[in-house]
């Protein structure tokens, strides 16, 4: 029986629904000796900003039960370096590349997107409005995370939509009271898809030194410990909007991925698990295909939103 794993996110055709999440796979090249990257559904790059960023001071990472906290602070070499150097490697990769971008101000998103619009290899743009490790200016000297402000999300998406024809994905934060409201704002702004969830804000403390274990004090929690929380949010958003959802949050195996798809995700992204086992995305793709053939499912689209309630 032929199995159809193809999915479509905006204008992007994916051979299978398994992507690798932003910040966990570098710019692809880091994993070239470990993973057959051409078998992935898509690669989402580490977040790129207009100007280079130093990132946060170390320690930036600490393991927690079944998870980890991080506060990297979007260290990156900036969009010009990405276009000038990193893209040349990505051109050899056959699968779609989605560039994750962020801005320190709302206007920067469109500036970065405009620069990327001319890069053929970039199939889509993921708007990282939800990195929890810093607070960015919303308007008039007011600082908060864009992802916690529906107006800011709508503004960012529509400003990017105005400068690019590429597929736009908005990455949502779980650190909100009502994530479906934020998803609707993204869709109203013109987002072709949404991805969720980014990390949950958390802390860890060293009781001996009484210091936080992360220099930034707070960090983003990821890994298998967040999966039930993420699943609930995907289900909420699925009921609220019509555009495709890319589900993520603690996916470690094919069963986890299928849970997300049953809750409404059209595609999934593997994040922290890339650190644990770089091959995991490959096993997840194989496992999804096996689940489909075992259950006589012809197209992966039949799985999406199939939750029986």
């Amino acid at each position, binding site marked *: 029986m032929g199995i159809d794993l193809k999915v479509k996110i905006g204008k992007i055709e994916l051979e299978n629904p398994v992507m690798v999440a932003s*910040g*966990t*796979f*570098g710019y692809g090249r*880091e*994993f070239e*000796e*470990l993973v057959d990257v051409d078998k992935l559904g898509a690669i989402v790059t*580490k977040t790129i900003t207009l100007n280079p960023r*130093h*990132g946060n*001071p*170390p*320690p*930036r*990472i*600490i*393991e927690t*039960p*079944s*998870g*980890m906290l*991080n506060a*990297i602070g979007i*260290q990156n070499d900036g969009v010009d370096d990405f276009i000038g150097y990193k893209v040349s490697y990505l051109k050899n990769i056959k699968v779609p590349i989605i560039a994750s971008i962020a801005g320190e101000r709302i206007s920067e998103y469109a500036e970065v997107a405009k620069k990327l619009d001319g890069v053929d290899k970039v199939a889509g743009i993921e708007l990282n409005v939800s990195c929890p490790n810093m607070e960015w200016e919303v308007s008039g000297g007011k600082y908060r995370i864009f992802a916690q402000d529906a107006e800011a999300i709508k503004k960012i998406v529509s400003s990017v939509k105005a400068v690019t024809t590429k597929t736009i994905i908005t990455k949502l934060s779980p650190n909100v009271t009502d994530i479906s409201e934020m998803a609707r704002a993204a869709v109203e702004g013109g987002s072709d898809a949404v991805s969720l969830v980014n990390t949950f804000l958390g802390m860890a403390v060293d009781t001996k030194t009484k210091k936080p274990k992360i220099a930034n004090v707070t960090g983003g929690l990821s*890994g*298998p*410990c967040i999966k039930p929380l993420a699943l609930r949010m995907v289900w909420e958003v699925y009921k609220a909007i019509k555009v495709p959802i890319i589900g993520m949050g603690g996916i*470690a195996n094919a069963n986890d991925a299928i849970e997300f798809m049953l809750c409404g995700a059209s595609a999934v992204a593997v994040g*922290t698990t*890339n*650190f*644990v*086992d*770089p*091959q995991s995305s490959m096993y997840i793709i194989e496992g999804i295909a096996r689940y489909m053939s075992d259950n006589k499912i012809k197209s992966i689209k039949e799985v999406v939103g199939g939750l029986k309630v």
Partner: protein
Amino acid sequence: MKQFISKIISNERIAKEQYSMVLDAAGMSEKATPGQFVHVRCGHDADPLLRRPFSIYRVRDVGGQKAIEIIYKIVGRGTALLAKKRPGDPIDVLGPLGNGFNINNPSITFIVAGGIGAAACYMLAEELVKKKCKIYYFFGARSKDYVICEEDFRALGCEIHICTDDGSSGHKKLIPDHLTDIIKEIPKAELSTAEIYACGPMIMLKKTAEAAEKAKIRCQMSLEARMGCGVGACMSCVVKCKQGDSFMYKRVCKYGPVLNASEIIWE
């Protein structure tokens, strides 16, 4: 670098809280160089989640098979699990990773190892022996119960200097101080092509860097950091380094783990 399932050949306690594990390295794609490390999965499910990095202590031949030895100390849940593993158990290994020591043509060399930091220095010493360098080996630990690998370095022909915090073995002195004292005894002319290599706790490295700067001797150090991916993707394991007039957070796993002491910004 390659990810492979290795088999544990032996796993033995060598000193207080410290173990030696020999692993089948037939699956390792390339030859490990001094100062490189492997990233090891200590458990097999979600907890503890992340891999742990370990210096490659040495590459050995066990019954015609390529094997690597790592030396580790129990510091948390991951290493505690590792200590429970038995010969024959499979173990998921990623490596060899990182950039190791840059071995020039030094005349005299000083290896400064603090505690488990000795694990990064044996292959280096082997390489320096091949180059016919004079090797002074400084090892520091809390007490005699924590002294490791002394005989291995002695067998290579290194001049051994042990320091302990309580004086129960060797000198009751900090190793960077002892290093400074020994350097003073050597004629300046002989030091012009000397080199210092260090691995150990941050405070020891900082003091060693200061000693090296004072003595005007080039110094490389292998750093330890909490890591995520181990391959340069996650940017978790950074160390603050000089970059022109500014600074840059460099990835220990990719740019290091060995860096020139002169580029590190100590805080």
